[in-house]
């Protein structure tokens, strides 16, 4: 029998397809819905200290059949209200990774402390938040800040810490190394790619925030390159994200070095049935490759490349 079970460090998921943060992630019932539809686990919306309404609409723009641009502005119910949502998802059996964001290392540590008792199986750090002291640049773009935040959270919780990185950097593996040295248990890559949509008739950006983040098929090669580069330079497990819509896409991420993957945009473009569809595709792909286990394929393309 084909074994789709995926291990990320000490954690085990029934399959490698996790729901990505920010998608179906505000309500516990929706998280559970993704799990019921076949996800191996779910990542919560990124939760901050206070409730945030996010930016005004338009917050999402479809870019043809290539993907979406979004600038939600990190809307979230806040850490006080959110445990109830996690409870609902946990009660239904869904393994929940709690995503958090803050403008400072202390802020991250406090949120991690608050997340721990809610029953999440890991904490994911969304480092795409503009950092408090910086000039609008993201925490995730500065190795020293990545290390500082990771260390602070590492100290604050016993749960596995996943550090989610942005592709908007010169060398993503440098950030992954910083996270690894600071005690991260896994790297999640990638968040959205900075992008813009302009309406030529209205002569203005479409998203209320101007700039946004590109997700979906357009970014798959970018996510793959990031996972590939990170795999060559760190030992901790990698969770791959970006543009995944098929079993083949998952296989590509796994061969590049991911132990599990997350699906975001595909939940909208392919409906939530995408989880069960990809699981079935993966099983077929594996058996046609003559393999019954995903884990032996992790990073296999690196070895493949060196063979003549």
């Amino acid at each position, binding site marked *: 029998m084909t074994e789709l079970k995926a291990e990320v460090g000490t954690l085990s998921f029934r399959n490698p397809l996790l729901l990505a943060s*920010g*998608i*179906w*992630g*505000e*309500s516990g*019932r*929706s998280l*559970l*819905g993704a799990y019921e539809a076949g996800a191996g686990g779910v990542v919560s*919306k990124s939760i901050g200290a206070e*409730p*945030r*309404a*996010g930016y*005004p*609409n*338009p*917050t*999402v*723009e*479809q870019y*043809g*059949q290539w993907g*979406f641009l*979004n600038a*939600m502005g990190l*809307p*979230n*119910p*806040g850490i006080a*209200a959110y445990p109830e949502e996690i409870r609902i998802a946990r009660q239904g059996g869904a393994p929940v990774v709690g995503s958090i964001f803050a403008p400072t290392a202390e802020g991250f540590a406090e949120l991690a402390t608050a997340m721990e008792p809610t029953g999440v199986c890991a904490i994911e750090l969304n480092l795409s938040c503009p950092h408090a002291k910086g000039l609008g640049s993201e925490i995730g773009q500065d190795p020293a800040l990545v290390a500082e935040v990771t260390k602070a959270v590492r100290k604050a919780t016993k749960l596995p810490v996943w550090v989610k990185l942005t592709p908007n950097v010169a060398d993503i593996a440098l950030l992954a190394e910083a996270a690894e040295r600071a005690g991260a248990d896994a790297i999640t890559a990638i968040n959205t790619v900075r992008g813009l949509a302009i*309406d030529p*008739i*209205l002569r*203005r950006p*479409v998203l*209320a925030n101007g700039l946004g983040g590109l997700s979906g098929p357009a970014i798959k090669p970018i996510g793959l390159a990031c996972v590939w580069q990170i795999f060559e330079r760190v030992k901790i497990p990698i969770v791959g994200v970006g543009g995944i819509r098929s079993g083949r896409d998952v296989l590509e991420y796994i061969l590049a070095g991911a132990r599990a993957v997350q699906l*975001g*945009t595909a*939940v*909208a*473009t*392919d*409906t*939530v*049935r995408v989880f069960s569809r990809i699981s079935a595709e993966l099983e077929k792909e594996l058996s046609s490759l003559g393999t019954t286990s995903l884990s032996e394929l992790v990073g296999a393309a690196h070895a493949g490349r060196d063979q003549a």
Partner: protein
Amino acid sequence: MNASPWDSGLREVCTVVAREQETPSTVTLRFEYSKEAHPGQFVMVWLPGDDELPMSLSYTGREKGVTVKAMGDTSRRILSAGPGTKIGIRGPYGNRFDLSPQHILVVGGGSGTAVLAPAAEEAHGQGAEVTFALGATTAREMLFADRLRPVAKAVHLATDDGSAGHHGYVTAVADRLISEGGFDAVWTCGPEVMMRKVLAAGERASVPVFGSVERQMKCSLGLCDACALGPYHVCIDGPVFPGHVLRGLEEFGRSKRDPSGRLVPV
């Protein structure tokens, strides 16, 4: 669960071609938007430089229309758009009314009638008999009563102040009509307390009810979770839900999510 909105959702810039003041607080804007739409579906209406709001299509033909009620700042600014104003439109999104029933009772409260009107017209065009129970705070706020008379078997009105029709809530009228029997479907849209009553009446009489529901919307694509309602997403699973589904939802008529995702009372 419906198909993905991926194939229909590309934004277009449309020019408002006509503006009709329907009631003191309600305005219809008409615009040409090329995509096919069905009664029940909604579009996202963007007044450039301002917010973008979900609006049901009150006209679904070639020249489409939305009927906007003055609520907060955004809806007020949208409804003050005149002919020539450029607005961004994407969609249509969401599901539609099943137009197959032959004896339909339409129960509209306030601007809720906007989404019911094109559904009733199209059902009538296909041979159905449509009866209306329309409610408003006062006679001048009664929406689409004149528009709907040509397709109606009967139009029953109700106003909170008694200035037209029944003095009181439209639910009283609906209750009576439903209990008299003869309908194979009830369609309703309006305040959720109103819809809850219509659902209860339908259940008592064993008539299927379909209600169109509003929730906070951001992506309208089944992505962001802003419109979560129990296990559903109003933008893709709704906005039209069968009564038995709505009755089973703890939140319906009681709570909704604010823009941060927190549950607040409706």
